Every structure is written in structure tokens, then in C-alpha cells.
């Protein structure tokens, strides 16, 4: 009896000891994690400031008056007399609203057409068998190595020869195909197991129906991502519209910004330009906020699957 009691006591003691030890480890671990967290957040905060500063600068400049902006020898980091004059200026000096509409048309139509072309091409490369498939795809991929600037010149010649200068068709046509997105989507389509294709066939779908009802829904994150990336690309495009249009009727917002900038009294009207930039950025920011989750999903998935 006694012996067993002693044993028990001994055991309890030991147990208590290990308990203490455990607590110690736990405490130090918690401390370490706290320190790590602090550093992480400090770093992230710093980075966020760096990234957000240009935006702040943009908004700040857009609310400074033209005269105060020009009188500041060293630009100040704040202003005490904010004004909306620049915004008025931006819309009145040039037909910004019209450009806005043009840009929307351009972006929506281009993105739509690009989507159709990309999805069909990716499907053909991923799933169908036709002679010369590999050659065609290799050629397509090798196009990615040619810098855009070179392509712009040939495109310019082609479109001009077709007599499509200063038309929406001329504006849109060259941006409809995108090699990189076809490649991206093809890779994505190929990751959908073959068995699903077979199952869909047995269930009575045609190739196109399979694409529409199975493949596209499964690859939705990637498709949404490329849609948004393309829309942003369209929204921001400057060189091509500038080259191919000399008619104000077809100007896009990027042309508008340039125009406003050149509109100052002898000097560049930077505040008005910044106001225009703010206005133009808003739709993109809204778009991003709306689809933030899907975009992130698409990007991270594309990342992990390499």
C-alpha cells in the first residue's frame, strides 16, 4: 500500500514538473510569435505606405488649385485649401465624358471578343486533335517573344491599308487575340481530368456543350481573372489608340488625359490631369473590389499549379 502511494506521489511530482516545463515552453513560444507578428505587421504597414503613396499624391494634386500647385517650389504633402475646380476643368476643357463612353465601348467589346477567341482557341489546343496542332501552338507561343512595339508597327500598316483608321473596328481588332491568355487557359483546361470529358460525352453533350457546361464553369476563376486583366489593359491602353485615331470622336480616356495635360496656360496643367486620372481610376478600383476574391483565387491557383 505504502509503496504504491509513494509511487503515486512521485508520479504526480514528475507530472507537475513536466506540466511546468510545458507551460514555460508555451510562454516562450507565445512571446516569439508576438514578436514575429509585430515585425511582420510593421513591414507590411511600411510596404502599404510605399504602395499607396502615389495614390495619395494623385488625389492630393487633383484637389490643389492650378496656381497653388505651380507656386509650390517644393510640392507640399498636404493642402489647406482643397478645391474641386480641377474636376470641372477636366470635364469642360476636353469632352472627357465622351472619351469615357468610347473607352467603355472599346473595353467591353474587346474583352468580349477576346474571351470568345481565347476560350475557343484554348479548347481547341487543349482537347481537340487536328493536324498541325503542335506546330500551330508552338508558332503561337513563339509570338510571345516578339516585343509589342514591333507588332504595333506592322499592325499600324495593316490597319491603315485596310482603311480602318479612326474606326472602332481598327481600334479593337488588334487587341482581340492574346497569346498569353490562350496559353494560360489552355493549361487550365488541360488540368480538368479527361474522365469528365468522357462522362459528358456519354451523358450526351457535344464538344461545344461540354465546353460551355463543364469546362468553362470549372475554370471560371481563371476566366474571370483574364477578363479583368484584359479590361484593365484596354482601359489603360494608350499607344495604339493614339496611333490609330486622329479623330476626337474615337479618343479614349488616355488620349484625353494627354490632351488635358497639354491644355495649361503655357505650362502643363498637372492638377487637372490628376483629377481626370482619379475619375478614370475609379471604375477599375470598383471592378477590382467587386471581384477581388475571384481574382485572387485565379492568381493563386495559377501560381500553385505553375
Amino acid at each position, binding site marked *: 500500500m505504502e509503496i504504491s502511494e509513494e509511487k503515486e506521489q512521485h508520479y504526480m511530482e514528475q507530472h507537475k514538473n513536466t506540466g511546468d516545463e510545458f507551460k514555460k515552453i508555451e510562454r516562450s513560444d507565445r512571446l516569439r510569435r508576438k514578436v514575429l507578428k509585430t515585425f511582420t505587421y510593421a513591414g507590411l504597414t511600411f510596404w502599404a505606405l510605399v504602395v499607396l503613396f502615389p495614390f495619395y499624391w494623385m488625389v492630393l494634386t487633383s484637389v490643389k488649385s492650378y496656381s497653388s500647385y505651380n507656386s509650390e517650389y517644393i510640392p507640399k504633402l498636404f493642402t489647406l485649401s482643397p478645391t474641386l475646380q480641377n474636376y470641372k476643368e477636366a470635364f469642360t476643357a476636353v469632352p472627357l465624358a465622351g472619351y469615357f463612353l468610347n473607352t467603355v465601348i472599346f473595353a467591353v467589346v474587346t474583352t468580349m471578343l477576346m474571351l470568345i477567341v481565347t476560350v475557343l482557341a484554348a479548347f481547341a489546343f487543349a482537347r481537340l486533335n487536328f493536324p498541325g496542332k503542335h506546330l500551330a501552338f508552338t508558332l503561337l507561343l513563339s509570338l510571345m517573344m516578339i516585343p509589342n512595339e514591333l507588332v504595333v508597327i506592322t499592325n499600324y500598316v495593316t490597319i491603315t491599308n485596310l482603311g480602318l483608321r479612326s474606326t472602332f473596328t481598327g481600334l479593337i481588332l488588334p487587341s482581340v487575340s492574346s497569346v498569353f491568355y490562350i496559353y494560360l487557359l489552355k493549361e487550365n483546361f488541360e488540368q480538368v481530368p479527361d474522365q469528365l470529358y468522357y*462522362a*459528358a460525352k*456519354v451523358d450526351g453533350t457535344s464538344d461545344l456543350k461540354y465546353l460551355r457546361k463543364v469546362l468553362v464553369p470549372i475554370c471560371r476563376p481563371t476566366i474571370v481573372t483574364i477578363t479583368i486583366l484584359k479590361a484593365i489593359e484596354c482601359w489603360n491602353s494608350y499607344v495604339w489608340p493614339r496611333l490609330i485615331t486622329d479623330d476626337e470622336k474615337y479618343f479614349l480616356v488616355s488620349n484625353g488625359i494627354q490632351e488635358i495635360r497639354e491644355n495649361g496656360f503655357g505650362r502643363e496643367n498637372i492638377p487637372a490631369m490628376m483629377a481626370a486620372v482619379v475619375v478614370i481610376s475609379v471604375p477599375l478600383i470598383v471592378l477590382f473590389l467587386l471581384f477581388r476574391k475571384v481574382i485572387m483565387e485565379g492568381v493563386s491557383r495559377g501560381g500553385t499549379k505553375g
Partner: protein
Amino acid sequence: MKVVLKNLTKKFPSRRGKRRGEVTAVDNFSFEIPDGKLVGLLGPSGCGKSTILNLLCGLERPTSGRIFFGEDDVTDLPAEKRGVGMVFQNYALYPHLTVLQNILFPLENLKGAEKLSRAEMRSRANEAARLVQIDELMDRKPGELSGGQQQRVAIARALVKMPRILLMDEPLSNLDARLRLQTREEIRRIQRETKITTVFVTHDQEEAMSISDVIVVMKEGVVQQIGKPQQIYDDPVNLFVAKFLGTPPINVFRGSVKDGRLWIGGEDILGVSGVSDREVYVGIRPEGLVPVPETQSDKGSGGTFPIPDGPKRRSAGKEEERIGLPPRPAQGSGTGTIPMSGLQGTFSCRLSGVEVMGREISVAAVHEASESPMIRAVISAEQKEDLTSDVIRFGVRTDKVFLFDRETERRITAVCRPLGRRE
């Protein structure tokens, strides 16, 4: 609908198109599946079962040969026009759709006269789901289901459009034993009621035996035997088929035929006629080995191992055989339940274990001429045998013994009869 396969061959080209590496998955397969029957396609892994299903549903084109559904040649018809239902080996559920949408999918693709109203589709989908007991999971996505549940969704999806032909590729492999049995019965019942011609692939011979009207046993793309389950079990055409069917598997011994007797090891166990003297494999079904009670004389002479030489041993046993062993008046009560008609001969092995499995007792023993390390006999648990001595003697039921050629492994047709009743 009747399905006819005519000289079907499928070769898969090797990578880089070298002829050497070509795989013949199905080799000259001819078979007529009778209308409304359930055919079990049975064979070891990689023997071409799935390939045959793929040929039937149109996912693969045969290298040569034709396929007929009824009178129509469908060899060149694409899969989506064949109207078959298929349960894939790996389910192939649509991951972006819920269970309900998965089951609805084939119905939504029906065209023309077959087109259904929304409500009709719903009720058919619900009915199919109820059959496989997944009606409570209708709103889940496949990723949120267990393997067995996914498998049942796949079955429901194949059944829902009431196809002309139903193909199932190991549809029960992922279910637990009880659900498996239940779903098996359910499939059987549905198949009987709807009279859908069905091909059921499995490598579980017990499943094939219990569910099929007709079994096709395959090996490496070649049909070995076609027939009713019992018929194949009772009358296998070669050693492969004999080994493949039955649990526990058939016991195979190296033996020989000499002077009208069948010898295994040093013992002649049966008389045979219709065969010339030669080396053979002897297959004896586990239920064909019936333990024989030890006799006084056996205990004296046969109590040691290795098995004693033939002649001496024989002299002890012969007398009993001649008078019709085993029922000895003294121990008759124990063995009285065995049908004695075909039971003759004796055969000694070293006992190595006895497993009581409820209804049956499985006796494991060792014999030097056996192809496998252990031989098995199954006897009814009601028999109160004394299974304690090292050496166990079996009587052999002649209808459970098959002889196979040593080289070709083909069945040798021979009449076995008990020793001692020589004409």
C-alpha cells in the same frame, strides 16, 4: 436491346509509334449479350475490362471488329449519340455541380422527343437518388462527399436517363461490405425491372457470381470462358478460370495419371478413365475435401509426418476404401450429413490450422505437392470433427475434382471415380 460484339480488337499504340510496345487490350472478342440480361465481365486488373466498356459506349474506336446495338451497327457512332449510361471506375462527377445537378445533367441533354419537362426531370432525379440512398445529399458538391457516396451519385447519374444499355465499371468497389451487398441487390432489382441490358465489370468474382446472368471471364484481353455463373464454377475450361472463381480459391496440386489412377504425392486418390498417362494439375474445390475421421489403424501407421510412403499407407487404408469409406459405423454420426454419393478416396495432409467462421469451418493444411503454401477445405460447422491430430485425411468428392494439362493448363475431360469400385 441485344448487343453484339464481333471480333472486336483494340490495340493501343505505344508512345513514339514503335510497333514493339503496342498493347493489345482486347483481342478478337466476340460475344452476344442477350436482350435484358446482366453480364458480368470478370478478370484480373489490366485484362481489358474497362477497354471493352469504352468500346461499347463509344469513347474508344476498335482497331477492328464491329459493334451492334440490336440490328444497328454503332461502331462509328460517337459516344454522345449512343444513349448508353455509364458508371465510371473513378466516378467522373462534375465537381462544379451539386449532386442534384450532376444527376440532372444527362436529362438536360436529351433532345427532341425524349425531352422532359423541368418537373419531370426533378422527379426522375429524386427517384434515382432514392434508389441509391443519397436523397439527403442533393445539395452537396462532389468534393464534400465520401468515396462511397460519390460512387452512388455516379450510379444514380447513369440510371436516371433509363439508358438502352447500362455499363458499370466496378460500381461498388468503394462501398462498405453491407452497403455493397445492398446496392448490389438494388442494381439487380432495378435491372430486372427495367430490363436494361447491362454490362457489369468487376474483379470480385463473388460479386460477379451473385449478380450476373452470364459471366465472361477474361485474361489479358482474351476471353477464357462465357457461361452461367454456376456452370463456369462447376465446369471451368482451364486452370486460370478454375483459380479465378471461388472463395477460398481452388486447391491446386501437381499430380499425375498412371494406370488409370490419379496420383498426388505418393498417394493414389481416385481412379480416372478417359486419359492417357501424363503429368497433370489437379484442382480440388475446398468443399470437395471432406475430412475423414481417424481410424484406429491410421493412428497407428499414419500419425507421423511426412506423409508415409504409398504402399505401406495404402495397405492400411485400402480395406476401408473397398468397403466404401468413410462412413464407419462407429463414427458415422459426425459425417452423416455429407452427401456421400461422390465422395471417395483418401488423401493425407498435415493439419496447420482450423478457423471457425460461424456457419463454416475452414481447415487449413499443408501438402507437399500443392501449388500454394496452404490448402483449404471448407466444411459445415455442424460437423463435429476431431481436428486435433497433425495429420488429417480427406475424402475427395469426385465432382469437385478437375484435371488440367501440365503444359497448356487446359481442362482434361476425364471421368473420376472412387477407387475400389473398379469395373
